[in-house]
């Protein structure tokens, strides 16, 4: 099972599921990470954390720990 935190720099992937047991999962969904969406890892901060994903026409920065709840195909 791959997670959004495993995506390489510049790689695109499609979200298959969100782990709703993660405490940040509701906000992750509300901001636009939903199953079926294509995301792209466009940038990383120093220490490779947080990660910046492009989705739905905008860029959202989330921590690696939060990217763990985004399951990709």
């Amino acid at each position, binding site marked *: 099972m791959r997670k959004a935190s495993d995506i390489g720099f510049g790689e695109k992937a499609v979200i298959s599921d969100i782990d709703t047991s993660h405490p940040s999962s509701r906000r992750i969904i*509300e901001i636009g990470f939903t199953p079926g969406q294509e995301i792209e890892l466009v940038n990383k*901060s*120093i220490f490779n954390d*947080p990660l910046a994903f492009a989705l739905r*026409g905008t860029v959202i920065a989330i921590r690696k720990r939060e990217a763990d709840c985004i399951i990709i195909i």
Partner: protein
Amino acid sequence: MITQTAHSTPLVTLVGPPNSGKTTLFNYLSGKHYKTVNYPGSTVDYSVSKMQDKFNINANLLDSPGIISLIPASPDEEVSVHSLYKHPKYGNPDLIIATADSTQLSRHLLLVRQLLESGFRVIVVLTMSDLLNKRNFDVSTKRLSELLNCDVIKLDGRNGTGLDKLLNLIEINLNNSLLSGKPDTTEYKLDNSSPLINMFRESEEIEKEVIFRVASTKNISKADKELQILSNYQIDNTTIKIDRFLLHKYWGIFGFFAIMSITFTSVFWLAQPLMNLVDKTFGFLANFAQASLGDTWYSDLISNGLISGIGSVLVFVPQIIILFLILGLLEDSGYLARGAMLIDKPLSKIGLNGKSFVPMLSGFACAIPAIMAARTISNKRERLLTIFIIPLISCSARLPVYALLIGFLVPNHNQWLGGVILASIYIFGIISSVVISAIINKFSKFILRNNDNSSFILELPSYRMPKLSVVINNTVTNAEQYIKRAGPTILALSIAIWMLSYFPNNNPKIEAKGLSSEQVISLKSSERLAGSYSAQLGKFIQPVMTPLGMDWRVGVSLVSAFAAREVFVSSLAMIFRVTDSSDNLQSSILHSMRNAEIEGTNQKLFTPATILGLIVFFIFALQCISTISISYKESGTWRIPLFQVLIFTGLAYIFTFITVNGLRAIGIN
């Protein structure tokens, strides 16, 4: 026109996600000039205003922090959601104007649909449709209105096109509200996240229906192929490229430190010529007043009490203006969100959050808005810790004090060294706040008493050229507020300190034989001070000041600085009676300071050791009543401000003691 009912003015509330053009719309409708900032979460409290008179609509307008959903995740979002359901003063809104970015419809429709589901009367305002047009797309407001079953219009935030239509709709909706009463609403609740995911799916469908491709002369053959909604999602490539650099492992850190150091060195360098001008003006005025009024008590009150007191603080307004100007440019360009992202990891190691960055940065201007800005942090422990350490960030009220003390250490012509010392003070302040944050984090069970889920989710807005007019406007407002806030305090305290140090021994008898008139005046004033109320008061403080190598005169100034830190400077000016023949106010304060001796000895009062000690004192001491009260209000407990005062002021005393005596022990007096 809507006439006012006997008991209530209708309430129109603006709701929208961050960066959806909500504040711009508020400014259009209210005629006010609140800043719109390119950092998600720049509004942290609601503001209420009347609609502009020229619109002829009698309604209150409420603007609140941006939210992305009706289920709040941080205190600033709670402010917004609470204002929708149970505003204590205004009640439920009669009408909601919901802003949504046309290029972000599937995301921004989520909130609109939650509002409609809860039963609110809503007008949807679509913003940024010009960006959509640029990509050869457009949005059908008619179709969207049918699908959502509420009014929808487009509004161009740059020139206000569409405002007339909006006003018309507001009037119709408010008339309806008058006839049928406020809508019945139910609080929006969610048991699990599957309704959210469904709502997103439906929003995507709606988006596909209402966004259509505009026929363009080129690419017609490809047009059909690109009719997928995905091609609308173009991300600003320049932004991504700039971010590759500014978020880079090495360049990013380099850029971060470069931007921060340019900010603080320019505060010192750029302001210098302006400061000299203000300084000379007040020095001239003080001398002029004394020369024309003669050796009387009111001459002394006006020249030493009022003009020097006010002047010694106004001298620093240029520095404050430049600080606000640069912070404004950084905010408006969009860099702040990147700054937050860059230092999230390091900050999380000491119990803070990347979102603590903006509050901490605003702390360089003033702790009060900074503590309020901490509302954007969703984790309570991190928020309390951010509030806790903000007083350690050197605010603009400390600038006058540092500038004077640095002026004592460094010869006047060496501005470069002055800038370096100021930068070091700032860096020392930051390092101390980091260390103290790490320590408090260790004792978090005892002091903060909260431990909840830590998260960092932040939209990175596209970079844009800062709008200079907005930034300047905002800087002027901030500088005005600074003067208005500090001005009366300084004026009142200046007069109080003047009285305490002039009376009751206001006409001392001295042996004037064989002395020049100037010597007589100087001898008189030192005799007067020695028998004054403040000297009597100072005897209580003396035992505390002696270990620090200072006397009661500095003690009185330090105590008065608890009302506002800047007062330290005017208080010194007052106690040391600075008006002399020099035409420059600051240099006369420094001149008197250099000549001052500890009473009863011929030991110099101000030496490099005591001056450095004072700088250390001001870095740590929490000497601001407004900060204490806002810290109580925002943390909701007296525990936090109490610990802040005890820990910071205690540390200030201990470290000052160590600095002064340590330096003396190694031979630096």
